[in-house]
């Protein structure tokens, strides 16, 4: 019972963080095309390829090696966490009410494990950064 309550508490904490993410960015993590793509990746290599593809935008930065190294380190750690069973024990799958306040919220519930949510947020950040660089280059 205590475990169940603890798990519910952890889920509530992370759900709140996901809702905060939506408020701050206007992006619903589980619905973003990159997050969907990430969810369908079933190997470390495929996740790494997806992230490194987004990280290409940094290739001409002065400190590109350091940035690439940081991204790679972050990704490898997040991939490890996403594979860790004990995090699943603590969270279960975090349920996300994708469009709260709309008339039929139940059918819009989506699930995204916490480590995957973080990976998706990182990939989206890289994607937004790449788009900004693209726009600046052609102004």
């Amino acid at each position, binding site marked *: 019972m*205590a475990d169940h309550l*603890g798990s519910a*508490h*952890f889920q509530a*904490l*992370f759900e*709140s*963080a*996901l809702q*905060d*993410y939506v408020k*701050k*960015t*206007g*992006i619903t993590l589980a619905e973003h095309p990159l997050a969907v793509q990430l969810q369908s990746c079933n190997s470390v290599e495929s996740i790494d390829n997806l992230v490194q*593809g*987004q990280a*290409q*935008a940094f*290739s*001409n*930065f*002065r*400190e590109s090696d350091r940035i690439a190294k*940081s991204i790679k*380190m*972050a990704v490898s*750690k*997040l991939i490890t*966490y996403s594979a*860790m069973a*004990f*995090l699943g024990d*603590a*969270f279960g799958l975090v349920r996300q009410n994708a469009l709260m306040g709309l008339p039929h919220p139940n059918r819009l519930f989506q699930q995204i494990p*916490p*480590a995957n*949510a*973080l990976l998706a*947020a*990182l990939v*989206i*950040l890289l*994607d*937004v*950064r*790449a*788009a*900004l*660089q*693209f*726009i*600046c*280059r052609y*102004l």
Partner: protein
Amino acid sequence: MIEHFLNRLDIYTRIPRTPAMYEIVIKIMVELLSTLALATRELKQGRSSESVLANVLPYSPQRSQICQESFRREGHGSGPAEAGPTHAR
């Protein structure tokens, strides 16, 4: 900053699993997500501003100056012309 969060997370995932430890791990993940959200929001706002400028100041010196300033802040050299290949969307 994200690196620090991840390193801290790494430490907590290596020690014995207790409810208190679970809570710390989740709180670190929440902070990480919040940090990524803030960074994404800032970049999106930058992108929006650039889009607005693109309509308001077509090919103007002001726009070029703003863009160059933005690149200088990122640690680039003299301007966008130095930027390498961009990610195709």
